[in-house]
């Protein structure tokens, strides 16, 4: 299978008041054409920062200190690219908050048509038609009429559909989704996930889907990358990673998923401790202070992703510790 987008050794640093932190540390990701890569991790793990770096949207003070972005080209090769140059072409983004990601002073049709016109030359009416067609494609009922609506007149689910239509207007090869369903209620979330899945299959689109919700990952992704404290700690096909985790952090995330059949007298499982402060990451394996299987040598472990099963890589130097216990509560 061909790789649609590859990120190699990406590091992002932020300098504030003379202190430099590295919220994204040597992250490599790749997503195959037509696949969905789930990027999971707690808040502050560096997921969103990675997406922003890919699009060149880093906030003031943050900069990419190393790394390369490769995008599949028409010639069938991967080409190194500059984030700014792919804007409106190869990569689009769906934002987390459909409330704030749509300009309240523009009609829905104009929001979408803008992207279409930025991508290639077309007349106003052509862009308008494209916008209405896209609204139909993302399942907005009565697209002709909704096109004239203002964002505030739409429900959260509809807004997110408009966001997706807007992202598709530039005809991207890769769609970055930053927790696109977090702000929605569960039934709507399910519809949007179904929509993204359908669009991915119909258009052969690659998706990088950022979320902290493992259940969502199980639903939409084929591949998954788990991030912790600015690093990718485990990658692989979605089922093996979730069912037979080879990193204690992934395992902890999986076993933390609450179940409906949990007894009222039972406490929810949590991960002990708190995510480390980016200004003061622990030495060696950054999860070791919270890891139930930690060994003395973990604090000296070098961060290398090692392939333990087919395409299934982990940074844990003691994956056998996990294999000895049975994994409960996988989704």
């Amino acid at each position: 299978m061909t790789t649609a987008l590859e990120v190699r050794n990406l590091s992002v640093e932020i300098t504030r008041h003379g202190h430099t932190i590295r919220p994204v540390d040597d992250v490599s990701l790749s997503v195959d054409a037509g696949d969905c890569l789930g990027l999971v991790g707690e808040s502050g793990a560096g997921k969103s920062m990675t997406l922003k770096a890919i699009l060149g949207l880093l906030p003031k003070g943050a900069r990419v200190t190393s790394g390369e972005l490769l995008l599949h080209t028409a010639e069938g090769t991967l080409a190194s690219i500059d984030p700014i140059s792919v804007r409106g072409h190869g990569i689009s983004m769906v934002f987390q908050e459909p409330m704030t990601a749509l300009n309240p002073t523009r009609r829905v049709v104009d929001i979408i048509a803008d992207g279409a016109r930025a991508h290639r030359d077309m007349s106003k009416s052509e862009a308008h038609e494209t916008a209405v067609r896209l609204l139909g494609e993302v399942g907005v009922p009565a697209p002709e009429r909704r096109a004239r609506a203002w964002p505030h007149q739409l429900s959260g689910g509809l807004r997110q559909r408009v966001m997706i239509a807007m992202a598709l207007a530039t005809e991207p090869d890769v769609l970055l989704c930053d927790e696109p369903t977090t702000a929605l209620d569960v039934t709507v979330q399910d519809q949007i996930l179904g929509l993204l899945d359908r669009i991915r299959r119909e258009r052969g689109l690659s998706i990088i889907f950022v979320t902290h919700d493992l259940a969502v990952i199980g639903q939409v992704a084929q591949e998954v990358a788990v991030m912790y404290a600015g690093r990718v700690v485990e990658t692989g096909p979605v089922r093996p990673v979730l069912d037979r985790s080879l990193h204690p952090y992934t395992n902890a995330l999986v076993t933390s998923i609450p179940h409906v059949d949990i007894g009222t007298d039972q406490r929810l499982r949590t991960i002990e401790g708190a995510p480390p402060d980016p200004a003061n990451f622990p030495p060696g394996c950054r999860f070791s202070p919270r890891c139930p299987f930690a060994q003395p040598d973990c604090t000296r472990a070098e961060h290398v992703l090692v392939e333990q099963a087919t395409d299934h890589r982990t940074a844990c130097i003691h994956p056998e510790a996990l294999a000895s216990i049975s994994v409960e509560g996988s989704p």
Partner: protein
Amino acid sequence: MKLRRRSRSGRLAVEPADPVAAKPPVPTSLKIGAAILGIFVVVAAFAPLIATHDPAFQDLTDKLASPSAEHWLGTDQLGRDAFSRLVYAARTDLIVGFLAALFPLILGTTLGAIAGFFGGWVDTVISRVADAVQSFPVYVFLIALVFVLGTGVMPILVAFTAIAWVPYTRLIRTEILRAKGLDYVAAAVVAGLPHRRILFRHVLPNSVRQTVVYFMSDVILATVTLATLSFLGLGLPVEQPEWGRMISEGRTFLRNQWWLSTVPGLVIVALGMGYALIGDGLAQRLRGDG
């Protein structure tokens, strides 16, 4: 939910409001304010039809006359018809007052947008110049400028613009800094839209609410300031009918011909009320609780 008549599409008039077409009701204050301003605009536009006399015609044999059927508001110290002067003055005060607020709005908004959107040294220069302008006492600066620039409408507009742009720049700059961080601006950036389009279509339209409301109060201020300058004998030519000058000239005769000063004063108050109500209504409307 309000029912809307849809005669154009031929559908039933009782169909529930189309959320796409529905508009919030217009606040009462906006209606009253617009009505007051409307009266002033009509009077200014049709001044020659409404005025009973030539506002410049002097009849020294009939000066300081009391109100009568001939002279509704009497005559001033030069025997000119006070009512006609009051009517013609609406033209001056309305137009000059409005422009004296509009030009600063345009200049201030442009500078604020540039400073906020591009940041860096451009922002620093604009912000420091704004500080410098603001550090002068407004009236002292204004009177000095008008004094130097001379008599006439242009000097007044130049002086107002040179001073009053500062609040607009500050307002817009702050709003733009806020708007710049919003997702839809990022979305526009990701879509590959050019800078200019992002600034004018996405950032600026979402930053002008407060400015519009502030503008309405600034028009009042500009109108009153214009009258004040005329009261002090600065700015507009002496012959030109202007409310501030009418107040000033009538001051001497306040004991016996009190209406000469009082009526123009009340007219200014009425116009100010009109602008204030419009500003209030707009603020209410833009907050979305119309």
